[in-house]
Structure formats: C-alpha cells, structure tokens
C-alpha cells in the first residue's frame, strides 16, 4: 500500500505469553513459527548428518552432544536480525510503525495503548486486521497454564527443555517433537485422537511411524488431566488412557501444549465496529475480497475464517488486497491447491486433495491413486531406514487423469513439492507427469515414475536403480 502511494500505519503488539515470552516485529512466522521452527529442524537434521558422516568416511567420534543454548542463541539472533530488517523496510517505505496494543473505538478509529499505559488514537479510511492467533491452553486441566509452555516459548528458551511431552493435534506439535528428539532430548507425544487432523491420514500415520522409529514416544488415545510441579522442579503429568480407562503418571522437565491456536480477536473490541466473528472459531468472517461485515474493514491471515493458516497465503492475500484498495487490480486470492509442507524429521509435502477428500468429492470408482515406496540414494550407504519414504498421486480415473493431489514423504519434501504445485496449477494430468523425464538421481524423480496404482494391488516398492 505504501509503495502504491498510500499513507500507512502498522500497529504491532505482542502480549507476553503466560510464561512471559515476547518478541519483536514480524509476527508468528518470523518469531515463533516457520523461521525458528525450520532452523531447529535443520539443527536436528544436522545431527542425523553427523551420524551419517562416518559411513561416508568422515571420522567423527560418536555420539556427539548438542548444546541447546548455543543453538537457541544463534536462532534468536537471526530472528532479531529479521525484526530489525522489517523495521528498516517499513522505514524505507515510509510506513509508520506503532508498537501499541490496539482495539476498536468505532468503525474508523483505533485506540492504542503502549506498554507503559499511554494511549493514542488513530483514524483511517481502511483498516486491515491481521492479528493472527496464539496457542491455546487447555485451561480446564489443572496446572496447564502455570507449568506448561507453548510454541510461543520453546523457540525462546535459553536452556534445554529436557525431557519433554508435546501435546499435539497439529503439525506444530509433531514438528517440535521431531526436532527435540533429533537434538537428543527424551520426547513423548500424547494425543487424544488422530495426528495431523485435516491432512491425508495415510501420510500422517507414516509421519508418526517414522518418528516412532527414530525414538519419539507416542502415547495414543491418552488425555492429560493434571500437571503438578514436584519439589525438584520437574513436572508430574497425570493422564487417562482412553483405551484402557486407566490413569497413568509420568515425570517430565517440560510440558509443551500444541493443541491448536485461537485467533487474536478478544481484546480488539470488534463489537465497537460491528465486525462479525464465527461463533465456533472466534475468527473474523470475511468474503472473497477479504472484507468483513463492515465494508472498509478487512481481515487477512490466520485471524480470518476459512483461510489456510500459512505465511505465504497471508502474504499474497495482503499484497492483492493492497492492490485492490489502491485501484491497481481486481484480482482476488485463489486459495485452492495451496501447497504446504510439514517439517517433521521425515518431511511431508502436499498439494491438492488428500485421498479421503478426493474419494469423498468424486467417489472411489472415479479416483485412481498411484503410489510408490522408494529409497533415497543417500540412505543406501548409511543404511538408513527408508520404510516410510513414500509418494502418492491422487488422480481422476478418466483419461487424461487430472492430478487432484500429490503427497510426498521424504527428505527435502518442500523443495520437491513446490514445482509440482505449479504443475497442478497448470492443470497437469497423470499422462503429462509421466511424460516428464526424471532428474537422476533425486527423490523427486520418483513422482515421474509412478506406475503402480493402489487398485492393482501390486507391490509399490521401487527396486534398483
């Protein structure tokens, strides 16, 4: 908007987490999301590479220890450089930045309060709400708020979290559990029902299967009831095993809640402006132009109802919105076929429909699923277990067999998936993907070699070179 000549103000404020964690400009992605998550994931992957290295001739004495403090400091320094970078960018583009906590006074007026309590009033022709979300606490569980932490805190811990139990529903939980295990920490994941809800379930179970084989412990169908602090500082967690009905207890250094996020809307005083929210999710209701129930007030990103909670979609939605508001274009955001990747120890990249969704939408007889278990070349020399390295393409059965969804589990899944997302955007058919010659040797080429369908019942294991 600033580049298009508008007078713009950005208001950003981070309410400290219950543990007291706060951070600078940039939002979730930069501070407590994608960026630190991927860096810690990388740290864990490097641990794996250190273990691989001797097989390739490097003499590194095993096992190698990990220093959390050193990693945390390096990650936090990078995040801070990004905070700084954002501030500089805003300055360069002549966007005014206010570090105040905002709420609506009326449809065109915001009241902002600084950390010190000083109030400012700002008015604007257009207002965009992009306040995102924060992790949910299971406040009904005794001790959850006092003793547990969330993703808001884990990336800012100065000391190692030690023996940890992430409580998941989401990719955040599995990603955290994944890198914690990779860094050498004793990690247990407790879940009430299925992991990665909303994702393809076959792929989700392969993800957790791999994590299990790498040392992450899973307590399935368990739900915590109480967290207590012990005299020595450790935490005692009591939970119920839903299958047996029995109660169990365990001791941990850290309990990490990753049971979902709630939109940051409660303190905005949305009713003062007449902005409607969804009664279930508390998210702000928007139309295809990202407009709320009030015509000149918009909402984008995680806070908007029905939108994928991803950085790149928020970025693009924001850009397109600015262009529309400045009369530059009338393009609206296309939220279909958004690719994403879960950065678990064995990464899962996907775009398009899950197998379940495809079956539900088109009917089983009209869907063809091609799949393969493959082994990355680099795993051979190190004798790494590749049992969960798997790729499947969900297509329409009718020729030319339009590709509905692609699911890839393996190293560098994000890199593999990005280009194919483009393919799907171009309306790729199975035949076109098969006509594409593979790049050898890579993992991605396995997508172009998918020949075995699930329907055939044949063994989908790729053999040989």
């Amino acid at each position, binding site marked *: 908007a600033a580049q298009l000549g508008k007078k713009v103000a950005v208001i950003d404020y981070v309410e400290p987490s219950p543990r007291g964690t706060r951070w600078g400009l940039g939002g979730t992605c930069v501070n407590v999301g994608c960026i630190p998550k991927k860096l810690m994931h990388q*740290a864990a992957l490097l641990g794996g590479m250190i273990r691989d290295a001797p097989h390739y001739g490097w003499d590194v004495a095993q096992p190698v220890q*990990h220093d959390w403090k050193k990693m945390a400091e390096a990650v936090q320094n990078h995040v801070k450089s990004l905070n700084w970078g954002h501030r500089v960018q805003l300055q360069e583009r002549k966007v005014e930045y206010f570090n105040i906590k905002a709420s609506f006074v009326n449809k065109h007026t915001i009241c902002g309060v600084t950390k010190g309590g000083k109030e400012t009033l700002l008015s604007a022709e257009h207002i965009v709400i992009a306040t995102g979300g924060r992790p949910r606490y299971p406040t009904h569980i005794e001790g959850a708020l006092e003793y547990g932490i969330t993703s808001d805190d884990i990336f800012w811990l100065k000391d190692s979290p030690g023996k940890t139990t992430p409580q998941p529903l989401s990719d955040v939980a599995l990603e955290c559990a994944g890198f914690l295990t990779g860094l050498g920490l004793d990690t247990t994941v407790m879940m009430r029902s299925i992991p990665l809800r909303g994702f393809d379930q076959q792929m989700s179970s392969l993800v957790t299967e791999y994590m299990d084989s790498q040392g992450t412990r899973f307590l399935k169908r368990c739900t915590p009831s109480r967290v207590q602090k012990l005299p020595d500082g450790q935490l005692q967690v009591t939970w119920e095993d839903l299958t047996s009905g029995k109660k169990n207890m365990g001791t941990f250094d850290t309990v990490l809640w990753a049971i979902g996020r709630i939109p940051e809307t409660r303190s905005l005083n949305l009713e003062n402006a007449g902005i409607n929210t969804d009664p279930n999710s508390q998210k702000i209701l928007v139309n295809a132009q990202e407009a709320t129930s009030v015509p000149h007030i918009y909402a984008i990103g995680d806070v908007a109802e029905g939108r994928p909670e991803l950085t*790149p979609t928020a970025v693009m939605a924001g850009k397109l919105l600015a262009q529309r508001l400045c009369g530059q274009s009338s393009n609206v955001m296309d939220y279909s076929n958004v690719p994403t990747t879960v950065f678990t120890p064995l990464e899962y990249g996907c775009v398009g429909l899950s197998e379940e969704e495809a079956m539900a939408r088109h009917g089983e007889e009209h869907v063809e699923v091609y799949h393969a278990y493959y082994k990355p070349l680099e795993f051979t020399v190190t004798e790494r277990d590749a049992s969960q390295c798997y790729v499947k393409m969900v297509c329409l059965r009718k020729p030319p067999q339009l590709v509905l969804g692609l699911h890839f589990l393996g190293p560098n899944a994000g890199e593999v998936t990005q*280009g194919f997302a*483009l393919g799907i955007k171009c309306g790729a058919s199975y035949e076109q993907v098969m006509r594409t010659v593979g*790049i050898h040797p*890579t993992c991605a080429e396995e997508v172009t070699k998918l020949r075995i369908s699930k329907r055939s019942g044949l063994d989908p294991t790729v053999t040989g070179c």
Partner: protein
Amino acid sequence: LSFHSSDDGASVQEMLSEITNQRTVPNIFVNKVHLGGCDRTFQAHQSGLLEKLLQEDSAYDYDLIVIGGGSGGLACAQEAAILGKKVLVLDFVVPSPQGTSWGLGGTCVNVGCVPKKLMHQAALLGQALNDSRKFGWEYSQQVKHNWETMTEAIQNHIGSLNWGHRLSLREKSVVYVNAYGEFVEHHKIKATNRKGQETCYTAAKFVIATGKRPRYLGIPGDKEYCITSDDLFSLPYCPGKTLVVGASYVALECAGFLSGLGLDVTVMVRSILLRGFDQEMAERVGSYMEQHGVKFLRKFIPVMVQQLEKGSPGKLKVVAKSTEGPETIEGEYNTVLLAIGRDSCTRKMGLDKIGVKINEKSGKIPVNDVEQTNVPYVYAVGDILEGKLELTPVAIQAGRLLSRRLFGGRLEKCDYLNVPTTVFTPLEYGCCGLSEEKAIQVHKKEHLEVYHTLFWPLEWTVAGRDNNTCYAKIICNKFDNYRVIGFHVLGPNAGEVTQGFAAAMKCGLTKQLLDDTIGIHPTCGEVFTTLEITKSSGLDVTQKGC
C-alpha cells in the same frame, strides 16, 4: 493397399506417417518390419537384407538382442520381456587403460550418476559437519576424511545394484551374457567373452545401447599415468593433490567433491565451463567453486604428463601450454583426472558389416524419431544417439517406449522436449528448457523477459554461509503469454527443486501461473513464485533480509 482407391486414404496416410515417419509411396513392410520407400528397398535387395527379410521361417534365436547392459539397454530389454518376447542382453566392459572394470548396469550405476552423487553427498556432509557447530553440535574441530572407507561403502552399494540388475533380468527370463558383441552379418552377432570364446546369436531385431567411454588427450603419458571417471570411483587409494583436466559437468562435479573431501584440487580449462549450458549459470557455478578453494587454470591444455614417482598415489608432472600464446606452465600432482569428453562405443562392433550409418566424426548414430537406424531392424538408445541428451532417464524412457512400440503395439514416442537436468557441483545447478543464449538465438532478445533473483537459503543464515550467491532465473516468451521456456536454479537440492517445475513446463507454465501459485515457506523453491525483478529493468537483485 492403395490410397487412391480407398475412402479413408488420407487417414491411412496420416497413420503411416505417424508409425513410419514416411508420407511417400511406396511404403514397404516385409514380415511386419518397416523397410522404407523405393530407394531403401533397392538398397536392401543389393545388400542381401531383403532376401533375409523375405525368408519364411526365419527362426531367429531371439526376438530381440540388446547390445549394452546400461540404463537404456536394460530398460528396453526388460520391457520387451514383460511383453512376452525372447530377449538376450550382451554386456561387456573393456577394462580402462588403468585396468578398471565393473559389473552389469552401465555407466550410471558403476561409474556415473550413482557413485558421483554418493561422493557428492560425502562432500556435502563435510560441509554439514561445519555448519552443525553453529547449530549447537559439539565435537573436535579437526575432522578428517578417509577415502577408503567411503569408496568401500560406495562400491558395496554398486555391487548390490549389479546384483539387483542380474536378478531382475533373471526374473523376467531375459538371458544375460557377459560378452562383447559385434555384428558379423545381417541379423547375426558374434559374442566374445573374457576368455576369448566366441558364440554367435541371431535375432529379428537389435538395439544398440553401448554408451560411451572417457576420451584421452592423445599426449605423451596420458593413458599410462592419468585416470578418468572410469577409475576414480573405485580408486583404492586417496587421489591426493589432483589436477582435473576439462570443464564438462563430469570435470566440475569431480573437482567439486574432491575439494569438499579436503583435497587440493586444480581444474585446467581450455576455454569455457559447461559447454552447452547457460553460460551465466556456468560461471556462477565455477565462481562458487573458486571461492571455496578450487583452483582454476583457464585457457591451458596439457601437452605432457610425466611420472616423477611411483606410488598410490604417485607423483606426476604436467606440462601445459596456453591456448592464447607461447606460455607454458608446469605443475606437480598426485593424480591427473581427465574429463574432457566421452567417445561413443560404436566403432568396433561391425556396424559397417551391416551398413549401419554412424557419424564418422563423433561416432554417434543418427536415428529417426522412433530410434530406428538406417537399417530397419536395428535401433539405438542412450548416449550414442546423435542429437539426443546424454542422460540416464532419457535412455530409460526411450528404451522402454521403444520396446512398447516394437512389441506392444503402442505408438508413443519419447518426448525429448524440455528434459530437466542437474549438475551436482558443490553448489548444485538445476535447469530445464533453454539457456539464455539459446533462447535469444531462437526467439530474439526483444521477445524475451528474464526474471531473476539472488536468494539466501534459511539454513545458510545461522550457518553463516554465503549470502547473495544462490540464484534463480526464468526466461519467458513475451509473445506466448510469458510462457516459461527456460528455468535455472543455483542452490542446495537443485535437482529436487527443478523436477516439479519441469512437469509444470510440460503443462505450459507461464509467469502468471507462477505468480498465482503460493510458495511453500520456508524453502528455496518458493523464490520462483515471487520473482519480480527483470534483467531488462536493471534493478539490483541483492538480498537484504527476509
């Protein structure tokens, strides 16, 4: 069958053109094999081929003999066997001048893609060890690399692949003979095994898939003292201080991983790097290698190699001459690795006896778009094909589709358009479609828009690695909806990044579609969904932050 007297003459002619690449008449088939037109038939009559084709009960030993058990040959053979044909595969490795030989599977498995990528991975792991300290991993600073440990592990894996191929052939009832095949007359070859024993085989159809071998310089000392990629991957001792001669991707990939393993490496280049590839990208590849310790001697060629000391490795003296003047230089190295190109293995297999035309200069075999040579029952696939890309997946695809056409009644031809590839240098380079030079040649500069950007992989930030080095560019055709006709990426995991975009290009990728697609965050690949700056704008692509 006469066109003019039948109602659907036009569609018959169309179909004939499709399956034989010939529109003219007469169009002659003998015993279901397409012979050709009038000229070819007379030629066949003169050479005795027509007589052979006309024989009623030909009773050949095999339906198909494949000469060469590499990527193309094996794919072709196995597909034919799956379609119920009786197939023989002949594979034989003539030992290199240094005495190196290997098992079934061809170049890719034994002395190409597979060991190359594994050694590249070993070098990348060395880099990862360095990075890991910044991410909190603690171990002693001095980490050494043991060449023998690595080579043994790699050779073990290759051995398992050789074995896997033999098993696979056996499972499909393909007969495999480890012998050197040569044509003696039409439809008949002579196979000579290691012991010198000769056996003859006949077949209705033949596929030549003999591939290539490294070229030597033809200077004193080259065959005696130098090694090539044939020898490097199974070298029983560490090569030490190495001179790599050449600027092909083989040369740069080898120089790259040798340097990454801690060796002192120099690359001697006659003129340009990576001939045939986008030159801007080639220079960036080279520049990264130079910044990371690989020495380059540009515009020199070796004229003599002398042995100073015997050993494993020994010590060699190399004398080189400048290509621009009288200057000569000398250097001492433990190993000299020649990577100046490869020669087709087509000159010593009796092709002249049956009249198969080859390009006399390159040794490559010209084929039509169904991989058929000028002799109707002889086909060819893989590196030896004239005008086709020398890549494993291309050979496999061509071989497989060839068998399906010959024996499965299918029509699909190999699609050689927009084949992606990746050079596995220390900083990997993936590409699909046209280089910038080629694009300008084909489309004219004014018709093109080139979008580009430098980028910094997130994992490199904390590791403190080069900023403003990784680079992405696409070349678009303004006159065709800004269609992406060239895709180039220089960065980690370039192969993984490029593959999907190649599929997208096959589906007609445009700049608009790139802009409309959401990136996966944080990855390297996502930079292609946010390309804004064009070369024509002259704007700076240096990165400042997230």
